[in-house]
């Protein structure tokens, strides 16, 4: 199993790239939700970039008997975030999409989207490790791209659907999260003891 990046690693490497992941993921501009509500068409990603990033998200949270990142439309979340709050990460994604295809070609002689799931996981594991043969960017660590895409995919899966991901509450359904408790009007003592069901944000009972 590959070792997860330490926060220190991410910061140090982020600084090498010219701005830490930490800072860019905390940039405060409440714009994504507005953009996501306005459009589910690509705002900043090209059609090819969209497909590659969509494929990455599909391996971070794969589809099984329940929906994964593809069904939750996590790539749309990322596109809207890159168009707004996380615009500083757009160059990282530009470099990352070129890089992941270069690694895929070095290993399997195909673009990343043309690989099967097992091959895609191998490429992502190589990126995660920082030892990806064929990675073309000396100044952009592959781990930084992987970790950013991983974190963004999870956000797209589990953030409020208004941000453009978590389509049809797919992420909350898989995770068994009913929605914000205050938004749902709070819980009764019997609901807290699971003697009564609770109403979910999508109108079912759980």
């Amino acid at each position, binding site marked *: 199993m590959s070792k*997860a990046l330490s926060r220190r690693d991410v910061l140090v490497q982020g600084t090498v790239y010219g701005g830490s992941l930490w800072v860019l993921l905390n940039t405060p501009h409440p714009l994504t939700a507005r953009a996501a509500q306005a459009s589910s068409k690509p705002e900043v990603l090209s059609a090819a970039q969209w497909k590659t990033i969509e494929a990455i998200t599909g391996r971070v949270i794969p589809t099984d008997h329940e929906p994964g990142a593809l069904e939750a439309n996590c790539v749309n979340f990322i596109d809207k975030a890159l168009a707004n709050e996380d615009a500083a990460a757009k160059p990282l994604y530009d470099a990352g999409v070129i890089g992941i295809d270069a690694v895929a070609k070095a290993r399997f002689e195909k673009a990343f989207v043309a690989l099967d799931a097992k091959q895609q996981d191998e490429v992502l594991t190589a990126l995660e490790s920082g030892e990806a043969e064929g990675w073309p960017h000396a100044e952009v660590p592959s781990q930084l791209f992987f970790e950013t895409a991983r974190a963004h995919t999870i956000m797209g899966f589990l953030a409020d659907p208004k941000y453009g991901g978590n389509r049809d509450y797919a992420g909350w359904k898989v995770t068994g999260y009913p929605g914000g408790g205050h938004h749902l009007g709070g*819980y009764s003592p019997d609901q*807290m003891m699971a003697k009564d069901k609770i109403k979910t944000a999508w109108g079912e009972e759980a």
Partner: protein
Amino acid sequence: MGKREEFDVCVIGTGAGGGVMIQELTAAGFRVVALQRGPFLKPADFHDDELRTMIRDEVFSSDQVETYRYDENSPTETGRFNYMANCVGGTMTHWAAWSWRFRPDEFKVLSTEGPVAGASLADWPVSYDEMEPYYERAEWEFGVSGDAAANPSGAPRKKGYPNAPHPGRVASDRIGKALRKLGHYPFPTPVAINSKPHGGRPECAYGGSCLGYGCPIGAKATTLSVCIPKALATGKLDLRANTTAREVTLNDRGQARSVLYLDGDGKEHEVFARHVVVSGNAVGTPHLLQMSASGRFPNGLGNSSGLVGHNLTLHHIAAVSFTIDELSRASSGLHSHVAFDDFHASDSKRGFIRGGVVAETNSAVNQPLMYALTTHMGCGERNWGSDFKKYLRRFPRSVGLAAVLEDLPMDVNRIDLDPQVKDGHGLPAPRITHRQHPNDFAMNRWFTKKMMDVADASGAIEKWDAEFYSLPNERSAMKGFMHFHGTCRMGDDPSKSVVDRWCRSHDVKNLWMVDGSVFPTSGGYNPTLTILANAYRVADHFVREAKRQNV
């Protein structure tokens, strides 16, 4: 600028320390001006939006810049390490509201333990007996709920809690039963959250999202919901939100004269006051004193001891998560419903000194994004792919335990001005230099093992060391930096402390520091009730002495 206006008191910071001072001083008729970084938020600004609140940090702290290094020889990182809220009400605004009294021995750690190598233990100049009436006052002002008779290891008390305990949830019920089976004494976690209407605020709706969030209905007591409204109602408070204090100036007699501050546009203003109360807590208070260095105090205002910024303590927080075979309902209710305190007493036979309290939590966080991004790491599983999806599915059956552990103060752990990094106003960022004492790690390991045993007794299916405080990518999840104390310690000896027993600077007689920075040692409990109680004690003294013309 119009004609010069002089206030009785300028309070810098409106959190637990400053908020109480503002409440008490305005009630006594003093004219107070309060400065606070960040906005004056209303309940409508608080909501369940996890991405906005916890990840993107758009509600609190948006202009915070700090640096961190392990020691003098380590590289410096820039980021946000101090889990605070920059808004009226301060960090209390997003607290989980756990409300403990320190035990009597926690005010006398040096006398209790004797000197310890590598640590700078000290006694508080005040005793539990002196604090007791002020704890009671704080509990009643803030509507703490609890069962006064249920914790045999807790501090002695004269009066019960103003609010009855809250109902439990599946998770706390499981843990409570397991603890009883193990021979422990579980009790309802005391929280400053209404179980019935109290103080003009409503009862809790059990919607979750206490830690890290503002309460949208005001059932959670904060200085924003308790102290500031009272102070504003007196007409004696001039509240200046969105301001950043940058220097306390002195007059030619060496007394505090004014405070220079920047407004939201970066424009500088000066406000004059007969007394200055600095309540920026353990980072903000020494930071302002250091920025206020002058010819008279070249190493920082009020720093003849050389101790301003030193002896920073952060607590060590151990956390274990596990799953049970039914819905835990941990997303509902409070951050914690049940606790036990039987491991609190110091016992060197355990391989460390000091101790702490253990409480059930909603698996560290009650919403899924923080769960997914932080809690996972100790599982030993991959944080993406099909294993990760299995981890996500555990969420509704997950339960948490956390221990708040007293860390030992060390002189080398400190706040100073970063020589390079500046904030958005061009002010030097506070630099945190911090590492843990070996005692802290030994205590953390022991408590983690004990919490694993409680998990087993609770019927754990999967269990893991949540490592909540040492993970990448989460602002709240960094190296235990949730509770900040020390850096302007309180003491009787001016060569060994920054403020006296009344939290008044030894060097500058009209300068007061009222917050967690004055804690000589950190205690094995969340600090806020002690900050509140201490502030009521100091305010009482201030008002009494002012009437005698002694301040």
